[in-house]
């Protein structure tokens, strides 16, 4: 076998292996999507029916039988509002740190450190706090709680983005007579907009996927989707088809949003620690 043939063989094997890996990741998801469109009877069938006539009944059912619409709304409101606050406060704080605080400083390390905190450490005291304030099972409770991870996360990511913008630009603006705030809103923010957008999406996804705090802090009123689907199963036995529909609904926004931020994923998910 000559060199050219061996390279071709190696390429063939590479593609075969990658296809295998892709299928392992994709097929389970496709199976859930398929089951979400089957009737109740078909969903339980083993051996499975491979070709099914799709029905939207399960989607209709979860929104009418369950207060699923409300849970969806809860998730949306809590994730959006906490992200919105985190973006605004985080951008200002990050800008101040990027321009005024040196690298390796305690403040920076502390902000990174909050990302390492195990949620289980935070959830007990936060539960006691929220209970004392009589705010259990409310949007406010979740929004404030989610700031405990999304705000430092946002600050940390945005420090990196702001440091990528040359100081000279906002300093030039200040020499021309604008205040620090004007330099920030007119010069730095527009330049950092794509990065802020990506950081916002990442923080939204974090809140959207959050489970432990929502489990402990909510009852039926402010319950979010992850808690709702985890409970759906225990409450109603295994309603396979409906559960699949609910699962599809919870992962759809995530997959859709992530398509926009692919190039930011690595930095976003590792706190910028991998170049």
């Amino acid at each position, binding site marked *: 076998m000559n060199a050219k043939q061996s390279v071709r063989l190696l390429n063939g094997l590479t593609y075969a292996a990658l296809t295998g890996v892709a299928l392992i990741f*994709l097929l389970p998801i496709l199976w859930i999507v398929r089951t979400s469109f089957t009737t109740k009877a078909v969903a339980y069938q083993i051996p499975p029916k491979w070709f099914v006539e799709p029905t939207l009944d399960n989607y209709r059912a979860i929104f009418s039988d369950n207060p699923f619409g409300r849970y969806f709304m809860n998730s949306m409101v809590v994730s959006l509002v906490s992200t919105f*606050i985190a973006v605004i*406060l985080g951008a200002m704080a990050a800008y101040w740190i990027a321009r005024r605080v040196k690298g390796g400083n305690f403040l920076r390390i502390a902000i990174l450190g909050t990302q390492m905190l195990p949620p*289980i450490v935070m959830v007990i005291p*936060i539960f006691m706090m929220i209970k004392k304030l009589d705010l259990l099972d409310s949007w406010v409770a979740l929004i404030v709680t989610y700031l405990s991870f999304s705000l430092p996360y946002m600050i940390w990511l945005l420090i990196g983005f702001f440091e990528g913008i040359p100081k000279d630009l906002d300093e030039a603006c200040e020499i021309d007579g604008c205040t620090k705030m004007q330099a920030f809103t007119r010069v730095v923010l527009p330049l950092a907009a794509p990065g802020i957008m990506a950081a916002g999406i990442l923080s939204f996804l974090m809140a959207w996927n959050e489970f432990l705090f929502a489990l402990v802090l909510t009852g039926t009123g402010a319950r979010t989707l*992850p808690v709702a*689907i*985890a409970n759906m199963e225990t409450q109603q036995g295994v309603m396979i088809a409906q559960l699949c529909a609910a699962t599809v609904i919870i992962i759809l926004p995530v997959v859709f949003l992530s398509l926009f931020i692919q190039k930011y994923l*690595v930095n976003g998910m590792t706190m910028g620690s*991998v170049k």
Partner: protein
Amino acid sequence: MFSVKRKQFLIFFVPSLIVLAVTVIYPLVYSLIMSFTNASLKKQGFGEFIGLDNYIKAFKDTYFIDSGWNTIVFTVIVVTLEFLFGLAVALLLNRIKRGKKIFFTIIIVPMLITPVAVGLIWRLLLHPDLGIVNYLLGLIGVEGQAWLGDAKLAMMTVVLVDIWHQLPFMILLLLAGLVSLPGEPYEAATIDGAGRFQTFLHVTLPLMKETIVVAVLFRVITAIKTYDLIYVLTKGGPGTTTEVISYHIYKQAYTFLNTGYSSAMSYLLLIVIMLISTLFVRVSRGKPQPR
């Protein structure tokens, strides 16, 4: 009154500082104080101060130690396997040009899925009677298993599900490292007549050292914190075979209502994580990289 610098500090940083003081610092202090008391959800307030009793109790508590052991086993196995498979897939992806983007897009999907949903997906697929996995195994003559219900299999099953969920993360990190490697050392290796495996061993691995350490440490930290997946897949069962530390602490707090004791245990977990994080910060130099 205020200097310009002081004013900037007030406007830009103080709002965040207040939010962090309320949502992070206050709970941490509250929890630390609670860990020295016999606080319980059954009674009002802090309870009585009992010194280090909760911490001493934790070290004698076989359930706590078992859950710590389960966490170590889980973490070591998932991180090792995810690293090995992750490196393999990243190397494969790095070899190809055509179709790279499609493969990449498909491969990263699982890591984006809500952990609770990942648990539910696999509960359904692995259901002993109604799941597709046992059916497919039956077709090739392998007997179906009670994947999550069998004490001997449950931990392995949880590990496999976690790998499905988190492997993409490892691939993503390692691929990012591979892509940014400089070209010259490879040219030199080719001129020296090094084979593929030698090049990998003596060029790629040393150059990737920092990325690998960061990726592994990062995953160790997140694996130790695993909670959602266990909640949905096994609730720590059967028995306590898959009860990891976060789940154990949760149970102590919300089933047995021992908030003082569970705060002490959570602080022990915090200390371990902070030690690993310090290592992580050292390696990644605690400095964000502008992208």
